[in-house]
């Protein structure tokens, strides 16, 4: 099987400081990988390099494109990369306002992404939007409301609908449940798990919440000071951590 994403010795420096260095992994279709680490460990830098928001200083990020197979997304042209960003990739930001257009209606937010891949029929777009709002548990009567009138949890679900409506194959998520209260978090996690299974999505989730990765991710990568210090099956890394830092991280979680 061809990996969906092949990451080879990615490095990003901020001057002489290391953002992230020597990161390599393969992600296969349907796999969800979690990246954990404390603030400043380089996990967001890595995610942004993978998603094309930052240009890494070294390495390759190869994506299995529908038309041409594995292509290095770092060296491809800007229009090609943008096209991927609108079709096969999705990026869920921690703060929904970074991923939504706050002064456009909920339906418009979802429909806009469809129009970007050349959907033109108003009725179809509106129906597709209603369908997706339903899947993320936003009722049809809110379709014309702006996200500013939504709660934080609803905004986050709307952002997910906007991202998934074009049927992407790879979803990048940066702290998707950060800043939400726990009951809303649980609902969102449940939703994401269902979508991953139904759509056979691959996802890379950056978070500092170990409970979130245990429930969502098949595989886990632990980062510290820009380097990957441990990888493996999620429950194995959490239950039998090998590296001193991972052991500290796991044993520092407060029990409820």
């Amino acid at each position, binding site marked *: 099987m061809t990996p969906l994403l092949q990451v080879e010795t990615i490095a990003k420096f901020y001057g002489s400081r290391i953002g992230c260095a020597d990161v390599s992994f393969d992600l296969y279709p349907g796999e969800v990988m979690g990246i954990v680490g404390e603030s400043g460990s380089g996990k967001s830098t890595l995610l942004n390099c993978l998603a094309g928001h930052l240009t890494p200083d070294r390495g390759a990020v190869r994506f299995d494109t529908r038309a041409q197979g594995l292509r290095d997304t770092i060296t491809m042209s800007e229009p090609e990369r943008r096209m991927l960003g609108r079709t096969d990739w999705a990026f869920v930001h921690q703060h929904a306002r970074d991923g939504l257009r706050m002064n456009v209606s909920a339906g418009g937010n979802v429909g806009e992404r469809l129009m970007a891949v050349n959907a033109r029929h108003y009725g179809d777009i509106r129906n597709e939007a209603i369908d997706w709002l339903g899947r993320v548990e936003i009722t049809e009567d809110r379709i014309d409301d702006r996200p500013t009138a939504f709660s934080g949890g609803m905004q986050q679900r709307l952002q997910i609908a906007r991202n998934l409506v074009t049927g992407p194959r790879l979803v990048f998520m940066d702290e998707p449940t950060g800043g939400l209260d726990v009951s809303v978090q649980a*609902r969102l996690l449940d939703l994401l798990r269902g979508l991953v299974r139904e759509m056979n999505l691959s996802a890379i989730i950056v978070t500092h919440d170990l409970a979130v990765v245990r429930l969502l991710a098949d595989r886990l990568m632990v980062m510290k000071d820009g380097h990957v210090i441990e990888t*493996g*099956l999620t429950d194995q890394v959490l239950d*039998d951590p*090998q590296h001193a830092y991972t*052991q*500290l991280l796991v*044993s520092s979680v407060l029990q409820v």
Partner: protein
Amino acid sequence: MISIENVSKSFVLHNQGTAEIPVMQGASLTVSAGECVALVGASGAGKSTLMRMIYGNYLTASGRIMVGDVDVARAAPREIIQLRRRTLGYVSQFLRVVPRVSTLDVVAEPLLATGTDADAARTQAETLLTRLNIPQRLWALSPTTFSGGEQQRVNIARGFAFPYPALLLDEPTASLDPTNRATVLAMIAEAKTRGAAIIGIFHDHAARDEICDRQFDMTKFTMGPAA
């Protein structure tokens, strides 16, 4: 079906003075299809540790753990995920679920993950829950609020939903009343009949003697106090 060869395991606790705790050395065990083997030994002998190593939940320091044609001790994460999906089931002592997911969906999940259509998976889940005496009024609720015995039975229903060729059972009859205990033993017997290779830990000695073909004494391979 399951073949364990000369495995060893130790835990290194880096943040507690880099204490190294050897847990087991040189353990070997083979379990054929249709056979049920009980792991025995005092608390701390490494029974659960070995079970977790077979499941890929704990790393194995050396040796081989073949489940079907996969060596769990060396397999890549995605090979183990695939193995767990279709070959190797595990009923742990504790139920761990996403909050807010209904009991019915918790039980149906292993079937959905292997491509059974939603209706058939739910029907199968209903059958299992009925058999294990979980009242129908609870099916739509999340099992997180259930009693210990109810959670245990939901866990068993989930573990038996897909017909895995290899099964790991950690105290499947603990905290069950006699009726449900008999049901669970019957389900284990049926799994044996259809050819599942089973490794179990039973503190319930009567259950162990009734269902297991052999015992495997962990004490011989124990290196010291386990973590």
